[in-house]
């Protein structure tokens, strides 16, 4: 077993430990209140935060991004290194946002499933075989469904969970169908051998294309690329605010890690042209549709769902450019990291507005926020500006580096995409600036200011994320 999946194994052990601890704790016994901010029910949240922090720290002190090793099922390289950092970052931020809002009866299961889900991301980052890619994808999607379905007394939440469950089962079956074609071509599930076999004469021109298109469709569902994005706005709207932040972060990391793993071994010479063109089309349509549909949304969660679709488009363009140049996907990793911080910051801030994570939030509900919570409003403004990509925030570097890679790769398709990316990023400014202007509108009527849950850590996550985004601009990360 190689070092790259050790943090995943440790997270899995911690997750199982939390589940066992839940069996013997008395917290679940009282069923009087579903959510509570008493210290006892947040115990599991703290344990899970500590577990993530300790495992992240221990692993980071010994790992390096340049070590390359493989043992058949797993590899250790650039992607596994940065993928593990991304997973830990997403996990730590999500635990802060969700603090105090976990269903009291299922507190141990909630955090146990969360740690299992993060271990799935790490398996995915280190996967070197079709079986481990699938294992990682399932280890992410099954706990995600469980987390979504935990709000049992909430009809909209259950509907969202069911919708996600059935569609993710469909996506998994598409992946398996594509994987079975690849196995049929190569006679093995090892990714290196598959690249060699798919390019040989014996495979013929059709089968590798069919396989890759099926797999790309499945991954496009995970990353919410148009036209596989339809579930995202509904799931975001139906579920609670913290869970919507999970849906924005985790499946996206999973999908892009799997995509980089599956396409990364193959350079452009071996990738069928049809797959290249369909990836580019996916990126173009995703950027345009995501940004344009976000313009007409009045529900904040729906708007953020379409904004997450739009960011998928930019990320896809980055993947495509890195494939064209045959470089390691550093720009994609940076964009994902910046996206995680921006999204966590904005959701953490929104969580403090209502105090009730289940309530629907329209754009007008944001009014008057600046007079009630001036500091959090300022932090949210920074996060929103970063989502636009204006200078003095990390979002600027993230977009700039992707655009630079795309222009460097310079073929007709990518140059066109670069133009579309610039235009759609300008369109995106409209709805993000609308949100900022609503935040600073003075208004008498507003949603309840009384918090039913403890939102102090959400507020902390929001402020910390915005600070990180500004610091990041002055100390840009180069990988």
């Amino acid at each position, binding site marked *: 077993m190689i070092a790259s999946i050790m943090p995943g194994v440790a997270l899995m052990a911690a997750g199982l430990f939390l*589940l*066992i601890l839940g*069996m013997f704790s008395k917290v679940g016994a009282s069923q009087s209140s579903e959510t509570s901010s008493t210290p006892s029910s947040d115990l599991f949240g703290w344990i899970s935060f500590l577990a993530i922090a300790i495992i992240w720290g221990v692993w980071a002190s010994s790992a390096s991004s340049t070590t390359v090793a493989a043992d058949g099922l797993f590899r250790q390289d650039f992607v596994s290194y940065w993928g593990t950092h991304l997973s830990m970052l997403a996990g730590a931020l999500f635990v802060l946002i969700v603090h105090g809002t976990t269903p009291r009866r299922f507190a141990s299961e909630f955090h146990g499933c969360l740690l299992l889900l993060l271990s799935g991301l790490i398996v995915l980052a280190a996967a070197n075989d079709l079986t481990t890619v699938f294992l990682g994808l399932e280890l992410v999607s099954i706990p995600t469904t469980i987390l979504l379905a935990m709000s049992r007394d909430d009809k909209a939440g259950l509907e969202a969970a069911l919708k996600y469950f059935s569609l993710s089962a469909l996506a998994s079956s598409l992946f398996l169908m594509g994987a079975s074609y690849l196995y049929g071509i190569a006679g093995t599930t090892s990714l290196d051998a598959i690249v060699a076999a798919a390019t040989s004469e014996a495979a013929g021109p059709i089968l590798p294309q069919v396989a890759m298109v099926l797999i790309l469709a499945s991954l496009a569902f995970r990353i919410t690329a148009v036209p596989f994005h339809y579930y995202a706005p509904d799931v975001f709207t139906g579920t609670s605010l913290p869970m919507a932040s999970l849906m924005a972060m985790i499946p996206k990391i999973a999908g892009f890690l799997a995509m980089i793993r599956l396409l990364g071994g193959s350079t452009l010479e071996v990738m069928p042209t049809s797959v290249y063109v369909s990836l580019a089309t996916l990126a173009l349509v995703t950027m345009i549709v995501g940004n344009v549909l976000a313009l007409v949304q009045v529900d904040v969660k729906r708007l953020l769902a379409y904004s997450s679709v739009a960011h998928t488009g930019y990320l896809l363009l980055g993947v495509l450019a890195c494939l064209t140049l045959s470089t390691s996907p550093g720009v994609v990793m940076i964009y994902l990291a910046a996206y995680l911080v921006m999204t966590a910051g904005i959701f953490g801030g929104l969580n403090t507005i209502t105090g009730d994570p289940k309530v629907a939030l329209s754009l007008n509900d944001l009014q008057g926020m600046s007079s009630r919570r001036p500091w959090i409003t300022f932090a949210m403004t920074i996060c929103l500006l970063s989502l636009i990509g204006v200078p003095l925030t990390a979002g600027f570097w993230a977009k700039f580096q992707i655009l630079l890679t795309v222009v460097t790769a310079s073929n007709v398709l990518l140059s066109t995409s670069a133009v579309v990316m610039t235009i759609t990023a300008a369109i995106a400014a409209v709805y993000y600036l609308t949100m900022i202007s609503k935040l600073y509108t003075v208004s008498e009527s507003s949603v309840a200011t009384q918090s039913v849950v403890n939102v102090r850590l959400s507020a902390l996550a929001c402020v910390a994320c915005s600070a990180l985004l500004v610091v990041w601009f002055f100390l840009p990360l180069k990988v």
Partner: protein
Amino acid sequence: MAEYFPILIYLVAVIGFAAVSLIMPHLVAPRKSTPVKDMPYESGMDVHEDARQPLDVKFYLMAILFLVFDVELLFLYPWAVSLKGEGGVPVDHRGPVFVVMMVFISTLGLAYVYAWKKGVFEWRPK
């Protein structure tokens, strides 16, 4: 391709038969509805209540638990068959494979204890 010609004829005949038998009744069949005819058909028996009854969730829990042990057995079989046979697990790999199997079995045991503690086996909760 000539040797596939009979299959083409067969294909046309099959699709044609299905299409004709679907369309013809709509054109020529008489329609006289009686109360008995309009009853939902349920294996020849009289319908006595709504088909959509709530079913106790415990049945599903039992089914899932059955699956736990079913899958466990499925994975134990290859191990048992290939353990000492010819071309099976090499002698110096038997130790690690044994450890892996023990980890697998204890994970399932943990799932069993978890279900037990959650009260799945109490058919009527106290």
